[in-house]
């Protein structure tokens, strides 16, 4: 492992790219073919199958096996020497100079993403067997899940920007279908539309960014773009402001998919979907696509520091903004959704300060523990008979021990308590931010860490500890979930414990740094960032202490208020506290009125504008057309008056005409 070469050619963009061998090509292709075949078969046959998951789940298990094999080969076996492999399936759009191939691309970043996506994807598939057992439309659910897996795998495997965009839209489609899975619920139908449309707003930027890349650099292929860029920048073919523009446009797309402020509004609503969907798509994988895109485009972003500052600002603002909302939400899934927003904010902050590896590290660990938390919340919801309001839970820990313990591990992980996964990655993000000169990012990040610990243990307290507020009719039937659900929870809990340590140790020279160094080396070169020696008993240690301290403070504060094991809750204290700051409480509870603002801007005012356009169309444009027609008819009526229908009037006219002609002839003739 330690023998990884850091001396990649700075002009090569990404470390050496080789054509995939036939085995790798087959495996990469299979990664895409299997889920899409699974999707098609499930759509066609699903309704007739007694166990509709019988195609989808084994397919994804095979996919997971292949992905793990490939990733382990690349990361641990160092099969591609830190470089990338690329393979062409066929030429997709051959439009003259605009030629886009259906190319697959695999480097260490892809490998990490693949591990996260397929592992959580596989576990969610298994979990769904139990969770969706009683749903009559579950064949659709598994079909959509397979479609999602296809799209997400395409997203991380795509070798050019347009293919990423295609996958980007396809994950949007899967997300749309899965959020609206219970389509008969009006709220679900509204939520999936909202999710798709808000994403599309970001996609405008992404699409324009792709066009800009093609027009300026002349290709969309990652490798070629990153190869050509330095020379073109140096040669003055591309102005620096163009790079800023391109990066900002790409970031727009990332903001949409990763739900960064102000395009964050769709994600909480997306919780209308079944909980496994929330875990898979809206916590662990799809929402990370934006982070992945920026990380993948790191050589571009590295040339545009102005864009990076915006990325960091948006990220850290979203982090604190979402955390402030998570404080007061009552719906267990919404708390987790805002928590997701907040954690994604961390990742963007990391990207923005140039801590690329830290961002991906946090992406991976967050995927694990947030997936765990969502699946755990799904288990809770399942146990209390589809109730999501935390005010109607409490004291569930004895009835659902496995769920309780696994979720406790997840909460500790997200709070950043060592040695769980969240500690390593969050510390990396904050530490890098501080050391790279973004102290303000670090400061806000620390506050967010405090808030995170607090709201997570608020959630734990309200759900598992304190007194039971469960509906008395439901209370006797509360039960632990079946093994198909608890086993994935246990696996994820174990991963939450060990993954951080595995990836993040030794501090300052961690495994994940080794893995991703070849990927981010060019960007770091461009930015002129060089790793400083790690000081466990210096600045780094101090930062760790601060992080752990604030996390503990938040955690303990929540225990005091909402209960923890034998500590009783003090909900009256909480009420008294909130009553003292009504504005803040109401603002947070109403998500700072963003839905209302959007409703006003886009539904009411936008609707009026559209109405005005329609009015204009009917009354002005069509009115003009019909007006011309009416005018013609009126004129005809008027002219018709001269046509009396009486022969002699006409005859007189003839006579007049005769006279006229004769006079003219006489005049002309006699001249």
């Amino acid at each position, binding site marked *: 492992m330690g023998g990884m070469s850091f001396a990649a050619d700075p002009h090569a963009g990404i470390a050496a790219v080789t054509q995939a061998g036939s085995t790798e090509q087959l495996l990469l292709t299979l990664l895409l073919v299997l889920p899409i075949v699974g999707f098609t078969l499930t759509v066609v046959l699903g309704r007739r199958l007694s166990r509709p998951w019988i195609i989808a789940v084994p397919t994804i298990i095979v996919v997971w096996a292949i992905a793990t094999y490939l990733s382990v080969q690349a990361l641990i076996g160092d099969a591609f020497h830190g470089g990338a492999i690329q393979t062409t399936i066929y030429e997709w759009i051959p439009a003259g100079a605009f030629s886009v191939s259906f190319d697959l691309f695999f480097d260490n970043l892809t490998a990490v993403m693949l591990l996260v996506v397929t592992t959580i994807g596989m576990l969610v598939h298994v979990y769904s067997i139990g969770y969706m057992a009683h749903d009559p439309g579950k064949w659709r659910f598994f079909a959509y899940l397979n479609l999602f897996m296809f799209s997400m795998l395409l997203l991380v495997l795509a070798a050019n920007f347009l293919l990423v965009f295609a996958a980007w839209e396809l994950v949007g489609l899967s997300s749309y279908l899965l959020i609206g899975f219970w389509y008969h619920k009006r709220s679900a139908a509204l939520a999936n539309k909202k999710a798709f449309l808000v994403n599309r707003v970001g996609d405008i930027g992404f699409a324009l960014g792709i066009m800009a890349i093609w027009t300026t650099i002349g290709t969309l292929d990652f490798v070629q773009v990153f190869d050509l860029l330095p020379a073109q920048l140096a040669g003055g073919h591309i102005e620096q402001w163009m790079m800023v523009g391109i990066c900002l446009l790409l970031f727009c797309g990332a903001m949409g998919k990763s739900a960064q402020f102000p395009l964050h509004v769709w994600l909480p609503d997306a919780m209308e979907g079944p909980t496994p969907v929330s875990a898979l798509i809206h916590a662990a994988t799809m929402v990370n696509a934006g982070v992945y895109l920026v990380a993948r485009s790191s050589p571009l972003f590295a040339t545009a520091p102005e864009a990076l500052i915006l990325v960091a600002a948006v990220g850290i603002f979203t982090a604190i903004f979402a955390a402030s909302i998570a404080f007061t939400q009552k719906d267990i899934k919404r708390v987790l959704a805002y928590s997701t927003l907040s954690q994604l904010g961390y990742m963007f902050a990391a990207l923005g300060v140039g801590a690329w590896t830290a961002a991906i590290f946090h992406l991976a660990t967050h995927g694990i523990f947030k997936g765990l938390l969502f699946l755990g919340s799904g288990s809770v919801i399942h146990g209390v008979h589809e109730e999501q309001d935390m005010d109607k839970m409490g004291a569930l820990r004895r009835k659902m021990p496995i769920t309780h313990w696994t979720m406790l591990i997840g909460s500790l992980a997200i709070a950043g308590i060592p040695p769980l996964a969240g500690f390593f990655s969050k510390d990396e993000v904050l530490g890098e931010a501080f050391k790279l000169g973004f102290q303000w990012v670090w400061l806000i990040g620390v506050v967010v860490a405090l808030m995170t610990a607090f709201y997570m243990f608020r959630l734990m307290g309200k759900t598992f500890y304190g007194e039971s507020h469960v509906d008395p009719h439901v209370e006797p039937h509360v039960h632990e979930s079946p093994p198909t659900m608890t086993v994935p929870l246990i696996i994820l809990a174990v991963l939450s414990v060990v993954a951080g340590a595995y990836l993040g140790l030794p501090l300052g020279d961690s495994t994940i740094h080794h893995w991703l160094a070849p990927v981010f080396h060019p960007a770091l070169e461009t930015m002129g960032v060089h790793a400083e020696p790690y000081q466990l008993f210096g600045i780094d240690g101090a930062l760790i202490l601060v992080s752990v301290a604030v996390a503990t403070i938040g955690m303990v504060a929540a225990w005091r208020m909402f209960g923890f094991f034998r500590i009783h809750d003090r909900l009256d204290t909480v009420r008294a506290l909130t009553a003292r700051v009504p504005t803040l409480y109401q603002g947070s509870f109403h998500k700072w009125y963003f839905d209302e603002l959007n409703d006003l801007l886009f539904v009411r005012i936008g609707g009026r504008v559209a109405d005005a356009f329609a009015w204009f169309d009917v009354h002005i444009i069509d009115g003009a057309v019909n007006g011309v027609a009416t005018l013609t008819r009126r004129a005809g009526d008027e002219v018709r008056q001269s046509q009396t229908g009486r022969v*002699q*009037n006409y005859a*007189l006219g003839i*006579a*007049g005409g*005769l*006279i006229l002609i*004769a*006079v003219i002839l*006489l005049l002309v003739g006699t001249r």
Partner: protein
Amino acid sequence: MELPQTVPFLDWRWDDLIFLVLAGTMLGSALLVVVGRDIIRSGLFMVLAFGALAGLYALMGATLVAAAQVLVYLGAISVLILFAIMLTQSKAGPVRLVFHSQAWAAAIAAIVIGGLLIASVLLTSWPLAAAEPIVQTARDVAALMFGDYVLAFEVISVLLLAAVVGGIFLARRDDIPDPSDPATRIEDGSASRVTGTPGVLGGPARPAEKP
């Protein structure tokens, strides 16, 4: 007995006199045709005018045309028109019923047209015209008509046939007269004939005072 070479007292040639008499008769009766209120009298004056015209033809020496004029116009068309007048029961009426509201414009137009025609006749010198009419016998005309113009002659005969058929078809009454239909009743018998008020030419259904 021999007539004097010129008209006594006036020192005119006889044919001048005859010309003037005939021309005067013709123009005068034609004028009466178009201005007379009584349509029947108009018809009769028309006969007179056509007769005078026949005389003029004869005076020119176009005897065949003169004969045809007598036969066709005096004999056929005039009678036809008189019949039509009787069938339509047209009687004399006040000026506004006889004349169209545009009568003044019509008069001016007619005078201007006449003036223009006369002016053009007078302004033309007719260099090819002979001083005296050329005598043409009926034989000459016949030779022309059945020689050079025979095709036209045949066409005219077909035309006449078509006109006869068309006339019959148009004027034919419906096979089964509808007693409720006033239009058919009118011709049916004398009982329904409107003899009534002068000026009500069409019958009671249609007010005659149309502006």
